[in-house]
């Protein structure tokens, strides 16, 4: 219902472009540092792990594509979505929840304006735009983190790391990753806006809404990821 109404108002003009841009900055741009950090370390540890496993079969040459595949298909979309949920999703739920309990949402309604248009639609759009961007940053940084560990530290050949990667990664892989982050962006902003919008009264209501928003979003990311992976394979 909530999501349906929001989607309807996405296609009825006027669209609040300035609010969309502001929310992209909030959900996306301001999350980039944390995404870069987690991306780098995920790529590095992934490379260590993969190298250890692959050297047992003498398959070190395929280290590059193994790391890139895991990142692009799975770890990039999922981990960056979880990080953005923790940073921006919680804040989103709290902000909308506070607007609810301080009657700011009622005030918008009394002005004969639609709160979905001002609060929900810009966040959903910003989520759909930001999550894929964050996943891409995560992937790029992760692959370079892997390069540092794999090539510089463990001595895999540089040509092998990147060369094999280009052979194995095709548009299909990138598209699967993109579908995942697009849907995570929608799920997370939807859940966080919903929990904030229907918060119960008082500070306790807002803190409960915030916690539930993060927990529900995180679980749904993982469940939906499993579902998509099994369907899109």
């Amino acid at each position: 219902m909530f999501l349906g109404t929001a989607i309807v108002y996405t296609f009825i003009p006027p669209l609040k472009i300035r609010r969309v841009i502001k929310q992209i900055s909030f959900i996306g741009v301001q999350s980039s540092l944390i995404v870069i950090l987690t991306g780098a370390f995920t790529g590095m540890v992934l490379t260590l792990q993969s190298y250890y496993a692959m050297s047992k079969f003498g398959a070190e040459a395929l280290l590059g594509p193994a790391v890139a595949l895991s990142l692009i298909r799975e770890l990039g979309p999922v981990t960056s979505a979880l990080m953005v949920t923790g940073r921006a999703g919680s804040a989103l739920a709290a902000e909308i929840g506070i607007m609810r309990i301080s009657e700011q949402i009622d005030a918008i309604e009394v002005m004969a304006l639609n709160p979905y248009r001002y609060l929900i639609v810009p966040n959903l759009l910003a989520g759909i735009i930001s999550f894929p961007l964050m996943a891409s940053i995560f992937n790029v940084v992760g692959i370079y983190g892997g390069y540092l560990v794999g090539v510089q530290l463990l001595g895999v050949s540089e040509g092998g790391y990147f060369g094999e990667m280009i052979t194995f990664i095709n548009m299909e892989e990138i598209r699967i990753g993109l579908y995942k982050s697009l849907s995570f962006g929608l799920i997370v902003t939807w859940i966080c806006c919903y929990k904030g919008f229907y918060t119960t009264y008082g500070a306790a209501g807002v803190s409960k809404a915030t916690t539930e928003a993060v927990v529900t979003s995180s679980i749904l990311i993982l469940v939906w990821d499993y579902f998509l992976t099994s369907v899109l394979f």
Partner: protein
Amino acid sequence: MIEVIDLHKSLNGVQVLKGINFKVEKGEILALMGKSGHGKSVLLKHIVGILKPDRGNILIDGEDIGTSRGTALERLRSKLGYLFQGGALFDSINVFENVAFPLREKTSLPKEKIREKVLQELEQVGLPGVENKYPAELSGGMKKRVALARCLCTDPEIMLFDEPTTGLDTVTARSINNLIKETHDRIKFTGVMITHDINQVLSIVQKVAVLDAGTIEFTGTPQEIQATTDPIVRQFFNNNA
């Protein structure tokens, strides 16, 4: 015109409104009095359609806002201005943007006209020069006055004030009451004003109603309320004597 007919409402299993009836004619202001927690704000929220009645009707110029949806509801609300008890300012934007918000979103006024109107309205509520502050930087009474400016700036046909002067010093309270009176003389809006300041508003309003324990205990003109011997109504005068 506002007409409330047999309005019932329970919240969290408690019966807050138990059959409210009253009528405010076009161009009249009704002062609504009553003890804290007796349902005054809940009643006002029904008139703007934020809360929906369990039973009964709320007619705005003959149309029931309690059962209106979508564009019909928006059309009714376009006539209304509402001052929330807590102000309900948007805390992510500054004072200027708050007051300008309904003008920008609901009218096609040019930028300079909006600016002029906002600054003039802030001056009228006695807050010149606060336009760049954020709501969090204001005191409770200042927030209330900014909210009043936001409510008045669109010149609505019907205005609902939830305790416009509570929490203000007597001097400022008097100037706010005067501002409401001046605005009323100018545009003859229909209004309901929740107040504890009975002595100050008797010269502004045309009708007084007393809400007690979820029902209307008394309605009448300012003259009638001053003459009544009803003990529940008399309490309000003694408190403010």
